[in-house]
């Protein structure tokens, strides 16, 4: 059996690599088709993120929120739900935190404490909103994709409304808040880059999530519910409770991501369109195979792809959005059971026969 197990593991690995390669190939094709200087474009996209300190900082700046939304989506995806509310609460949390910070500028609290309070408030707001689609799904059997996407739109307009009526900056031509006060900014770890102390929060979140997953009974329950709900029921696990908590935790981590991102990277709140964070988190969760300990890898990969796309966007005439197509291809192929399935089955057949032969000898 050992060989068969190894063959299965090997194929999992090959599939991820192959999926990434195919996604890159499709992207290259797109780039080659529309640009006059494809070599330059590919260079910017593939190597760009590592060429300067600033760009690598950008990459890490994206990596931090992906750590948080990715771990959040691990909870959701591991419980076999496709709740995308992480996207809505990401901006809601960022918005609430920004408003509180601006309205209370110069507050007489130690900055570290004030930042901590803001992050906690953001997280709690996210968790509270995250409860809505979770309850709708587990108590009323309303599909979580529909409810979470409807709520995401509502939250998008709600945040725009709050920014416009509370803290809008009338000096700028687009909708955005006034500048965030200095004291709430997360400390930069490397000056002149987006690498900020939120990195520690992100990594800590990965550790916390891993502990919850494997070192608490809640984690066991969530994973078992996500893997086989009927079995969870017979085992006496409170399914509704476990799944609601998983989805609320997912929203909370994502909301923390939004708050950290606002205080770490931005000078003002300006997320007036959908952030795609729900989907990005899902991609990270798929890449890390629902295992929070692998989230840093998935998050880094996504941050790298996104940074490359951004660089490409301002260096050439290629719009950023192609990267969404690329992400989708990666998800589709990695999650595809039958992708390369033929080869896998043939190999397993050979191994099983071989093993049987060895036994008989």
């Amino acid at each position, binding site marked *: 059996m050992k060989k068969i197990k190894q063959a299965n593991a090997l194929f999992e690995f090959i599939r991820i690599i192959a999926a990434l390669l195919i996604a890159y190939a499709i992207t290259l094709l797109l780039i080659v088709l529309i640009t006059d200087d494809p070599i330059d474009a590919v260079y910017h996209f593939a190597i760009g993120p590592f060429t300067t300190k600033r760009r690598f900082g950008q990459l890490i700046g994206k990596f931090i929120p992906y750590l948080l939304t990715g771990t959040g989506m691990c909870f959701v995806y591991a419980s076999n739900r496709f709740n995308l509310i992480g996207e809505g609460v990401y901006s809601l949390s960022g918005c609430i935190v920004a408003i509180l910070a601006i309205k209370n500028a110069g507050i007489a609290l130690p900055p570290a404490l004030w930042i901590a309070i803001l992050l906690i408030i953001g997280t709690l707001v996210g968790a509270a909103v995250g409860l809505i689609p979770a309850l709708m799904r587990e108590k009323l059997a309303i599909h979580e994709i529909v409810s979470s996407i409807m709520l995401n739109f509502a939250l998008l307009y709600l945040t725009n409304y709050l920014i416009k009526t509370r803290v809008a900056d009338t000096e700028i031509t687009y909708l955005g808040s006034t500048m965030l006060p200095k004291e709430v900014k997360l400390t930069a770890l490397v000056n002149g880059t987006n690498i900020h102390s939120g990195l520690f929060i992100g990594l800590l979140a990965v550790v916390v999530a891993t502990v919850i997953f494997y070192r608490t009974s809640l984690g066991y329950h969530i994973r078992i519910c996500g893997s086989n709900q009927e079995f969870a029921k017979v085992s006496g696990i409170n399914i509704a409770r476990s799944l609601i908590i998983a989805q609320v935790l997912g929203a909370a981590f994502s909301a923390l991501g939004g708050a950290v991102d606002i205080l770490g990277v931005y000078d003002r709140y300006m997320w007036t369109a959908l952030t795609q964070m729900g*989907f990005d988190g899902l991609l990270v969760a798929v890449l890390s195979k629902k295992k929070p300990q692998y989230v840093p890898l998935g998050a880094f990969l996504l941050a790298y792809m996104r940074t490359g796309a951004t660089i490409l966007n301002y260096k050439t005439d290629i719009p950023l959005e*192609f990267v969404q197509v690329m*992400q989708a291809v990666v998800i589709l192929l990695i999650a595809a059971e039958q992708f390369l*399935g033929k080869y896998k089955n043939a190999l397993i057949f050979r191994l099983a026969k071989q093993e049987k032969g060895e036994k008989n000898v």
Partner: protein
Amino acid sequence: MFNLDFICSFLASVIRVTTPLFFVSMATLVTRKAGLLNMATESMMLAAALTGVLVSGWTQSLLFGVLAGIVASAAVALIICYCAFKLKTDLYLTCIAVNTALSGGTTFAMYVFAHDKLYTLQVVHSKAFGNWNIPFIKDIPYLSTILSGHNILTYVSILGVVIMWFLIYKTRLGLRIRGVGENPRAAESSGVDPVKIYFISFLICSVYAAFGGMYMSMGYLSYFMRDMMSGRGFIGMSAMNVANAKPFLSMLTSLMFGFSQALANLMQLSNIPSEAVSMLPYISTVIILVVSSSIRMVLSLRKERAESKDYYDQPAD
């Protein structure tokens, strides 16, 4: 303000904004009858809306635009089917991924072909569907305001509901779709290939979704706008689900959802900030879903409870 004229024109606007929902609810209905929920109708709509605008703009032919739109939408359907039924990716995950791909992909394509990331307005002058005045009715006061003079696709959408009803309940294909939806393995053992039926129902779905999308970009508006479906795919599906996948009932529930959209549009004219008003259709969708599901839950719980009445009504020991 609230005189009869006003009410009539409001009702007309309800029909105007419900038209895409008619299309989408029928699009999702056919896949649900086959036993699947299609969460990616928005992608199909986006693909058709953009392609329709671009092709009709280039060829200056509405017909070519429409055909291209349908082809684009069907291509999205084929991608979904291939991933979900051949490569065996989870259908929901597939739909979510395709939605993101198409949201980015259409923006990308719009930039490449129309050199703008927000609207196609400046560059492409596409053809649009015209309006139609219904003979006789157009001469009846008030009624004509409500029913006549809508975009031709509005009438197509209503015809589409009838066609869908006929397809599902009267034709051989409809019987097969219902059979597969109820028990795919049984259908397979009767020689009906479920995967083929899934492909067909997704393709039919994509045609309806294509018209829904093209109504948005070549009827309701006359240009393509980034992410212009803004949740209509899901609202239409909710309408179908609330109506329990009954074609004509889905029309009524679609009107209910359309009503809140029209109300929101109306309130844009008032002093309330537009951002707050824009939430209305989404919030009301959530509320309608909660209410209808609660009623369904309570009824089924009550039935279960009634079946076990003797068991529960004994004295405790």
